[in-house]
């Protein structure tokens, strides 16, 4: 997976949670972060969607536990957006 996506998602989550980037490892359970609540997670998701111009489904969003989960979802969603080709 792209380290760049993990870095970007980490920065977004850190910004929405009001925490330093260093406090958010890729595998840290977001619900254990200081001041964690579902609104902060949703705000992070909204910013991730805007940053990558993607739309994530709620059943995917509410299953996210870590930055790595979110980054994996971003990468797979971006891959689905790629033109499938194969026309003529």
């Amino acid at each position, binding site marked *: 997976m792209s380290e760049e996506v993990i870095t970007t998602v980490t920065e977004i989550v850190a910004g929405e949670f009001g925490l330093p980037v260093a406090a958010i490892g890729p595998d840290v359970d977001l619900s254990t972060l200081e001041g964690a609540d579902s609104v902060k997670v*949703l*705000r992070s998701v909204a910013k991730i969607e*805007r940053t990558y111009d993607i739309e994530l489904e709620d059943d995917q969003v509410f299953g996210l536990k870590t930055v790595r989960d979110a980054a994996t979802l971003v990468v797979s969603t971006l891959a689905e957006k790629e033109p499938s080709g194969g026309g003529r």
Partner: protein
Amino acid sequence: MSTPIEVPWRVLPDYRCFGCSPSNEHGLRLEFTHAGEGIECVLRVDRTFESYPGVVHGGIATTVCDEIMGNLLVLKVGNSVFTTTLRTRYLSPLSVGVEYRCVATADAVGPESEPPYRAYAEIVDPDGAVCVTAVGTYQPATAAQVRDRMDLTDHEAELIENALADLRKA
């Protein structure tokens, strides 16, 4: 404070848009101002638009986002646009009586852009926290489609087309 933007529909003497007409007593009467490359409006509603006690109806939040994104695109491309898809993400409820700001952007859209056009909107609370985000996709309508889809006299259609043409020249 910025001067309100004159939306092109104001050339119609009996314009009643639920979102932005100042003369629709049942409407939201939104006034738009420039905000960087986008536009913004203030949203503050009373209990007329309530869902749960003290909570603004979610449909109103979506309507405001749609309204501001659509108007932004009209101003950018100089054509009427119709919504084709609209997606809203509610992050936290809006409260009745509180003054929110709704900001729309469509950085990638200009007069030469190919449709469909994509725009974004956010409703932000007084502390700057985002409460609602929306993304919409819009298709432009030709003058003939406008004439066909809207209930306009020939004179009104001409007024609208002239106002839109002025936007395209700007």
